[in-house]
């Protein structure tokens, strides 16, 4: 039995259902919209598990589901050593979002990460504490800033309404997921030039220990190479 984990809500769920339908596998909710049980037609030995998108990485790593759809950002942020537990099978072409670093749009002297590093140094000297970056992607942002040798900053945790932290003066910059950038502009923030911290999209992942014959057959049916 292959347990397939799919986000339980909204547009992401619908796009997942469409992606599988195009490949001959019809996924649907069993019964009403309020039920989190799922139905699978067109494939043998596959069960649908509807889960909160944020829980899918953990469930995959633990082997409580064999296949799952989630963002590359969530896997990389939440699972230390993720390649040891998961196989990244196929990008699915939707759920695109970039993890970016944004600063106040009024900072005319800040275009790129070099400017940011210099401003962080000045800020720390002027204010006596490290420039604060609000984010919920602690591991990704820290690893990225470390690889670019940016010092003089600190992360502050923000699990929601992150774009508002700068105006509220609880942070000087933010690192968050954005797709259109509209929320950033509305909050008078701008994205630093250069490559984003991470380009994410909905991706099909498998539990590494579940890559057997049964999985190979199902992946062949989906037209997905087995990693």
């Amino acid at each position, binding site marked *: 039995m292959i347990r397939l984990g799919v986000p339980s809500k909204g547009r992401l769920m619908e796009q997942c259902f469409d992606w599988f339908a195009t490949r001959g596998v019809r996924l649907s909710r069993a019964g009403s919209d309020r039920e989190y049980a799922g139905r699978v037609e067109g494939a043998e030995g596959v069960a649908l598990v509807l889960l909160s998108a944020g829980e899918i990485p953990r469930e995959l790593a633990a082997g409580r589901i064999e296949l799952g759809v989630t963002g590359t950002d969530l896997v990389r942020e939440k699972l*230390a*050593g993720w390649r040891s537990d998961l196989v990244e099978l196929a990008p699915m072409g939707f759920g695109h979002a970039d993890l970016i670093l944004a600063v106040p*749009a009024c900072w005319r*002297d800040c275009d790129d990460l070099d400017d940011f590093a210099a401003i962080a140094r000045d800020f720390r000297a002027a204010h006596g504490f*490290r420039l604060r970056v609000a984010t919920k992607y602690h591991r990704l942002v*820290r690893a990225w800033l470390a690889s670019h040798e940016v*010092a003089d*900053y600190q992360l502050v945790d923000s699990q929601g309404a992150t774009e508002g932290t700068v105006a509220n003066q609880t942070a000087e910059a933010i690192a968050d997921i954005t797709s259109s950038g509209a929320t950033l502009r509305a909050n008078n*923030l701008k994205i630093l030039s250069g490559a984003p911290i991470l380009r994410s999209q909905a991706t099909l992942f498998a539990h590494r220990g579940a890559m057997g014959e049964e999985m190979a057959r199902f992946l062949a049916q989906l037209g997905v190479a087995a990693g």
Partner: protein
Amino acid sequence: MIPKRDKQAVGQRFLAAFRAAGAVEVAPDILLPAETLLDLYGEDIRARAYVTSDPLRGEVMLRPDFTVPVVQMHMANGAEPARYCYLGEVFRKQDPGEERPAHQRDNEYLQAGFELFAHDADADAEVFALFHRLLAPLGLGAVTGDMGLLMEAVRALPLSPARRDAALHHVWRPGRFARLIERFSNQRATRDFPEASAPWSGLRGADEMAARITRLRADAAEPPLAPEWPARLERLFAIAAPLPEALARLGELAVEWPALRPAVARIEARAAAMAQGGIDTSAIRFDASHGRHTMEYYDGFTFSFLAPGRADWPPVASGGRYDALTAVLGRGCGRAIPAVGGIIRPGLVAELEAGA
């Protein structure tokens, strides 16, 4: 797997040797206030240390190293010269990145350490000779460096004070430092700072931005750094050889770069003191870039002892001079104390001894 008891026994052996060398044993707390450590080490330490919270004391951290609590203890009630030693656990998260290694590294391990607070010029050699003697039976490779040499080299570059301060600030970040030097070496187009339509937002002040823009405009008018300077810096950073040979090459470089002479003389004096203590200096390596990848607050002599054939191991012992750290910690009381010290990892020593 070596039982903890055995590692503890190895640690006790080093502790006894440190006491015999005149050190007073201290036992800092395991739960330390997080704020000081976070302010000093920033996100590097947050990524590595276990932070938890106490209802009364606020954020606390499981001791990630001994240096800070020992310095604080000394500043509160010590007098120079002072020698301290300790043995205890430190706690470090080991985030593997994308893949889990086959052998996970310990996230709690023992450190046996020795710290010397003294205005004595031979303090570096004293600490190094002590570690060298205690570790001699293990056949480790000793590598030394000197961050003071690099900082004096940077201070002597023909740069404006603003450029010099930026370069000094980034000595510990080789990529960023290299980019700065490259930027200083090329005449750059004057930069525009187009008006922003967005209203002012956030804690950084408009005056802070104006000051930076003024600085950047002045910087654009600076003459480029002459090409011989980046070339000399490259030669300096690349010096990595047995100590006598490295000193010879430093001497050659100092002919065209006289500002290096005091630092080179200091390294020479240290080498002479080591030799006088019976150390074969040709078996000690000097790597000019050695301290650049270590903790930012090592600002003078640095050393590590590495186990040959164990490329995946951290140093079995390491240390150095950290006057900059005592200066930061002493900000409140206007004190800075010359300090040099190091730690040995008894767990790794126990593994080497078990394998021998």
